[in-house]
């Protein structure tokens, strides 16, 4: 087989979002160059005047909650709780629609699809999930504000931005975590208040387990507890807690009165810094630990090479990550340079999201289709920004290729074929999507289809289009 032509198909499908017609031809014989060129320049930002900052959205939600408190204090509205939850959902839902539509539009048209894929990878690594209504209106701005600016930067900055973002703080409950010896807790104790203050270890544990060291990264329960105390006070402006309302509404704020005073011991190192600097120091150290390099390298290799990635490939990526102190473009270049990435074609089963985007990109679906496409993600089992847990979406074939999932994908392909197949030439599209990766069986099957609709269904159902 023609090696450079096959490399183009691999670049577009494994590293990109699927080929748009003409993309493989533009790549020519320099698939690696096509990928590395995308690393130049700042990371793309989403366009759209409708896109609002998280602080803007969140301050509006906080205003609704303040109305509830006032109503409750006045004793006038017994259903105020339910009403405010509904109002917040009403506020958040259109925001979610705008954000996901903008994200899909970008995916369908971008000429830097590799950067978009990397963005998705990191959003999934620092996962928040909109099945918790508190982040329904914030997941999109989280990706735009915390992930995109650092996708072509340094891992440490990515970690710091994610940890400080209101979406992450809310998703893992840190905004109300209070040091047991903090000023706030002491004050409450003096007043013999009924309210007991203390830590919530959710965010601290998931940063260690899922975002930096990995579950086998060598930390203990004591490290989790200490780290949770370190990040007490990392909160959100105007979130009301014991009448604390400092900070800019909806933005990250450090609240000294909630912070556990004193030094903490984490992974054998003593952290004696004051205030928020203590947490920043811990996060910086975590990002630099060999366990983190290994954990990130494994996830990247699993995502771009194979479900069980070759150990030498992982080791190489980990070394580059560590030696460059988490410089992400260096790691991406190392990834592109790995021969393993180009050896095993079609080792990965596309996730539903990858499948949908590659279909619509290949068909050059008009941008106003993005709104309708959003529901396809839920239908095929991967509602956008809803992985359901802080671990993010899973990344092995067995997680996605269940019989019911495969059947739904085929049914979705058929629905699309019925709808637009008559106006498409699938036989002409097939080589533009799959290039040298197209099998003879697919070529024949598409060519001999009974109708335009059926031809498109068959192309979308082809084994080499289900995988990447």
């Amino acid at each position, binding site marked *: 087989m023609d090696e450079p032509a096959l490399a183009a198909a691999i670049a577009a499908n494994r590293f990109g979002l699927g080929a748009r017609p003409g993309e493989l031809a533009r790549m020519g014989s320099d698939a690696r160059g096509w990928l590395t060129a995308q690393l130049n320049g700042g990371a793309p930002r989403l366009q759209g005047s409708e896109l609002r900052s998280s602080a803007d959205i969140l301050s509006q939600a906080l205003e609704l909650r303040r109305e509830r408190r006032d109503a409750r204090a006045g004793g006038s509205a017994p259903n105020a709780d339910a009403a405010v939850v509904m109002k917040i959902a009403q506020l958040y839902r259109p925001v979610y629609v705008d954000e996901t539509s903008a994200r899909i539009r970008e995916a369908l048209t971008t000429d830097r699809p590799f950067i978009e894929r990397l963005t998705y990878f990191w959003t999934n690594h620092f996962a928040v999930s909109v*099945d918790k209504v508190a982040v329904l209106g914030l997941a999109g701005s989280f990706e735009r504000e915390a992930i995109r600016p650092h996708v072509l930067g340094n891992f440490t900055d990515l970690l710091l931005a994610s940890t400080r973002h209101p979406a992450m703080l809310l998703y893992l409950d840190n905004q*109300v975590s209070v040091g047991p010896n903090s000023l706030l807790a002491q004050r409450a104790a003096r007043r013999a208040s009924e309210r007991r203050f*203390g830590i919530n270890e959710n965010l601290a544990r998931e940063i260690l387990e899922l975002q930096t060291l990995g579950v086998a990264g060598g930390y203990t329960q004591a490290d989790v507890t200490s780290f949770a105390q370190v990040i007490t006070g990392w909160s959100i402006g105007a979130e009301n807690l014991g009448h604390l309302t400092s900070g800019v509404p909806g933005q990250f704020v450090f609240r000294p009165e909630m912070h556990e005073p004193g030094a903490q011991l984490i992974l054998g190192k003593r952290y004696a810094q004051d205030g928020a600097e203590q947490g920043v120091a811990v996060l910086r150290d975590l990002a630099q630990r060999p366990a983190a390099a290994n954990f990130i390298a494994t996830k990247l290799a699993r995502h771009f090479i194979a479900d069980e990635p070759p150990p030498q490939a992982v080791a190489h990526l980990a070394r580059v990550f560590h030696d460059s102190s988490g410089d992400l473009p260096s790691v991406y270049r190392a990834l592109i340079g790995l021969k393993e990435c180009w050896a095993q074609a079609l080792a990965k089963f596309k996730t539903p999201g990858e499948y949908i985007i590659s279909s619509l990109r290949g068909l050059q679906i008009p941008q106003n289709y993005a709104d309708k496409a959003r529901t396809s993600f839920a239908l095929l089992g991967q509602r956008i920004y809803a992985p359901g847990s802080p671990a993010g979406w899973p990344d092995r074939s067995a997680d996605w290729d269940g*019989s*019911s999932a495969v059947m*739904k994908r085929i049914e979705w392909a*058929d629905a699309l074929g019925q709808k637009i197949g008559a106006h498409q030439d699938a036989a002409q599209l097939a080589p533009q999507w799959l290039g040298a990766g197209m099998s003879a069986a697919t070529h024949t099957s598409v060519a001999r289809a009974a109708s335009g609709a059926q031809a498109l*269904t068959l192309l979308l159902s082809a084994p080499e289009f289900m995988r990447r």
Partner: protein
Amino acid sequence: MRAIKRREFLTGAALATGSALFTSRIAFAGSATRPRFVFVILRGALDGLTAVPPYADPNYARLRGEVAIAAPGASGGALRLDGLFGLHPSLAFLSECFTAEELVVFHAMASPYRERSHFDGQDVLENGCARAHAVQTGWINRALAALPPEPSARRGELGIALGQNVPLVMRGPAPVASWSPSHLAALDEDTLQRIADLYSTDPVLSQRLADALSTESAADTSASEAMLGAGEENSPAQLLARRNEPKARGGAPYKEIIHATASFLKSADGPRVAVFDAMGWDTHANEGGALGQLAARLAGLDAGLRTLKEDLGPVWRDTVVMIATEFGRTAAVNGTRGTDHGTAAAAFLVGGAVHGGRVIADWPGLSDHALYQGRDLAPTMNMHAALKGVLADHLAVPTRALDTAVFPDSAGVKPLQGLVRA
């Protein structure tokens, strides 16, 4: 009628491809005594001390403060099980099952896992081993593989996962199906045939397609049986008819899964073992007590189980449902009126075939020195003992397989006897 056409297609496809894609089957009339087993995974770590409050433990109210469930008889109090334990007041159906001696409640139970990661905890809950990621298959699948072939089961598929994909507990050498409600139209036979041809050299996709069609056909079969029969309310055909109804967030899809589980288990030549998930138990903040977040989740679970019993009708008699979670939560409430990741938890065994009306627990107590690592309910019972007992007595999985293949190196873990009615 689409159901019939699809079944014709299956036969036609077997002839046309001449492959092992679709093997013929023998339709067995009524096999009402076949045992059924359902495993419900509560992902996220259920708080056993709220679901099954040890209301009479002297330390319980102290540790739980304002969210402690009160003793039976008090307002919002527990539903009495015995002198120590009660059920959360949301669990009305389970309480009725207890009275009918169809519910066993386990407490202070844990899998072999002793750390506090959800994801490793769930891995151990599903892989049946002593540690996470030890194998890539699940204990239910390996138990199915150890059963003698059953001619009445369609294509030998004894297990079904309700969901688009198959969870680890159901993955492995035995063929299993997965099913989830479809909101898309079915393909015409010719297109389907061409796709089957296109997949003929792809072992994974051809197997998936065959499984999907077989499952779909099973759903169609029980639907047409239902139409000919007593006019049951929850056949897959009616499920499909309801597919465009508005769905409450998180509520209705769960109900659809329950209805489908019952439909599949009732089918004479359908699967005997079903698995599904219920999400949303990770109550780190504002967990609530008699009312609140967790109470609402428990009420949803309880209502789903009641629906399962109603849908199963006479088959409930042959059914055992195990409801388990990856680990428990901290004994004390945390600083945000919730609970963090813990160790031992409660689990439930319910069904018409369960020898119930009992709480099985070697209660370690909740005093400071009794807590595991000073913070969690201590584990005193190995979940594998209960599972081995159920698999041996209910599904007749051979002891040797249970000790080696199903729960590797577990000969030292004796099965709990007498969980199932003789």
